[in-house]
């Protein structure tokens, strides 16, 4: 008998197990197997000393549900564990997570370099709203990696982008852009909503802060709004003098230096201590619980989303009514090779396609599909469609639409997990109507 020496292997829990268990210990919660919903505004202090200790960040715990809540805390830890991050902070929506991230990082007079292909609401935040706070942005096309470098200024505090742009499916070269950011001593912030940690873990490719609209695939069932920012823990805030609010004594907490005191969790600690205190975009415990339910089946759902999406890509690519299809799984997609590297578990379930007949045909298609839902969301278990130029991105002018890579014939498709034949049959109804736009519009 051979006496083979057993190789040492870490037995930390894997993705699917963490999806179900991370952040929660039943024995500390009356043995409740399910995460309890702590529907409360505030928490009893043991005594005055305990209260002071909590307010001074001397010990962990909860004070007021605007700052933290036990149910929300489980969600935060769970997402941090799945992303490979050190800490996370959940918010009331994806947009509030982006806003909180920017306001934790920047002050008036600062500058950001931002990918041009983003959700329309995010474009407007960076283009119109943040300048009101004295924070300016330069937009760069997601594939223009060198452009990100050229756009960095002395007062630039970070680079922001969606890994796969909404709605055009252009992919940022995250590892290269991370190098550019780090050479400039600034963090890379990535909105990875489309991917979820099941498809991509941005920290493994150089990102420093990851943001999700949890409303989408993470929650997955179209029931609840939520957002989150996750910290990678590698970025050294003390490497230069660009981030004084992270490194210098902070008056709001008795001269605390977040970077010195909390190191790899400093950004999240500041975002919570300052941002949640002062802006307050807190997540309700009920919504946190709903998102936790979704995360329990994340990998199962994502596999089905991706396999259905690949089927739909084949179907659309061969359809007479379709002018073009954009999805990273298509071999002639400009980012196909990059997608294989960054998205090894699947290329996601967002498809953009152009319908022959332009805007009128697009409108007719959307007005006639019966199974697919026409609405302003993505990442539902159900199949969703929208015409971005007249919906999600309608507040953008013609030039901005063009710069963001949007065309009037584009339909954005979020592939659900229904039976694939039923989705295709439904699309046939839409395409038939699109070929007769006038007749349909008179109905």
């Amino acid at each position, binding site marked *: 008998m051979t006496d083979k020496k057993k190789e040492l292997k870490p037995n*930390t*829990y894997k993705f699917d197990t963490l999806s179900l268990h991370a952040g929660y210990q039943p024995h500390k919660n009356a043995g409740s197997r399910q995460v309890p919903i702590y529907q409360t505004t505030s928490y009893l202090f043991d005594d005055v000393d305990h209260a002071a200790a909590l307010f001074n960040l001397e010990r*962990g715990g909860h004070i007021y549900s605007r700052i933290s809540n*036990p149910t929300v805390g489980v969600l935060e830890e769970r997402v941090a564990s799945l992303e490979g991050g050190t*800490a996370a902070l959940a918010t009331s929506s994806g947009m509030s997570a982006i806003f909180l991230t920017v306001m934790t990082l920047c002050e008036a007079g600062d500058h950001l370099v931002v990918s041009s292909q983003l959700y329309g609401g995010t474009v407007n935040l960076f283009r119109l709203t943040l300048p009101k706070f004295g924070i300016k942005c330069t937009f760069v096309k997601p594939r223009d990696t060198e452009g990100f470098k050229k756009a960095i200024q002395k007062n630039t505090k970070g680079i922001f982008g969606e890994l796969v742009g909404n709605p055009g499916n252009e992919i940022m070269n995250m590892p290269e852009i991370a190098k550019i950011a780090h050479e400039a001593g600034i963090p890379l912030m990535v909105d990875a909503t489309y991917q979820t940690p099941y498809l991509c873990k941005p920290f493994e490719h150089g990102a420093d802060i990851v943001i999700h609209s949890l409303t989408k695939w993470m929650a997955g069932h179209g029931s609840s709004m939520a957002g989150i920012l996750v910290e990678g823990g590698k970025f050294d805030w003390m490497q230069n003098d660009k981030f004084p609010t992270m490194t210098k004594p902070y008056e709001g907490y008795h001269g605390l230096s977040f970077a010195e005191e909390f*190191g*790899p969790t400093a950004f999240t600690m500041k975002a919570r201590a300052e941002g949640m205190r002062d802006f307050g975009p807190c997540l309700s415990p009920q919504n946190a619980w709903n998102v936790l339910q979704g995360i329990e089946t994340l990998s199962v759902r994502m596999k089905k989303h991706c396999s259905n999406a690949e089927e739909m890509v084949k179907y659309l690519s061969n359809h007479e009514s379709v002018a073009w299809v954009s999805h990273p799984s298509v071999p002639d997609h400009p980012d196909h090779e990059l997608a294989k590297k960054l998205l090894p578990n699947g290329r996601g379930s967002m498809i953009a396609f152009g319908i022959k007949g332009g805007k009128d045909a697009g409108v007719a298609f959307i007005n006639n599909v019966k199974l697919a839902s026409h609405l302003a969301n993505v990442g539902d278990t159900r199949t969703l469609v929208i015409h971005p130029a007249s919906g999600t991105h309608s507040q953008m002018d013609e030039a901005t639409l063009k710069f963001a890579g949007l065309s009037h014939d584009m339909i954005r498709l979020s592939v659900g997990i229904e039976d694939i034949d039923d989705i295709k049959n439904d699309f046939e109804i839409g395409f038939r109507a699109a070929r007769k736009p006038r007749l349909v519009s008179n109905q």
Partner: protein
Amino acid sequence: MKFKVNNNEVFASTGGRPFDKKKPLIIFVHGSGLTHMTWVLQTRYFAFHGYNALAIDLPGHGLSSGESLKSIEEMADWVHDVIDAVGHKEASLVGHSQGCLVTVECTSRYPDKIKTLSLMGGASAIPMNPELLSLAENNDPKAVDLMMDWAHGPAGHFGGHPVPGLYHINTGTMLAKSRTIQNTLGVDFRACDNYKNGFEAAKKIKCPTLSILATDDKMCPVKEGKKLASLIDGSQVDIIDNCGHMMLLEEADRVLTVLKKFITTNYPPLSS
């Protein structure tokens, strides 16, 4: 705060309060490959309650410069030098894991200077698994992953960090990977493995001593911790259920409660 010891710059967290020479000094000594940040849920309390709480980064670790010290004995002398460097005549010591070896050795060498000793996850010797030692000395990140696995109890593997939103294992991993693994963890593990004087050092300790142990500690099991405590006259022992080696994070509140009672009783704070 930053100060110099043997011409090298040392970083120590003061728990968010300014250093005040009038207040009694507590020095917190971290474990192998880690940094001052492991103590954040203990130091800030003491800093706000009448003490100078110094969570040091050992040389070559965290934000301290210089090279890592190669033996527990050198580290013990260095901790003694820290007391002098910050202008104090005495201190209370708190150690975790390797920090227990260091503080036990330091207390035995400088009995007049050390007023109390608090040990968390301590033993009189910490022999290293040869494969783990080799991985760390060869700069293999797997060494950190293994350490994080073994250092957390079954409950700790699920998370449940006392600070909302923080995830234990990934935070510890980042701390241990913040400097070159072979220069921190590799050197520290070798120092632990080489240290054989724990039993003798413990017998010399006469100051009030507390050992906090955890039932699920695989790295310094309760049995070993009790053995160490039995060598120290009058040593107190507190055992935490359902907790692993990273008790100062896994059960931060419980640890703080026990530590607070022990230190304030035996080494009172400066009253305000």
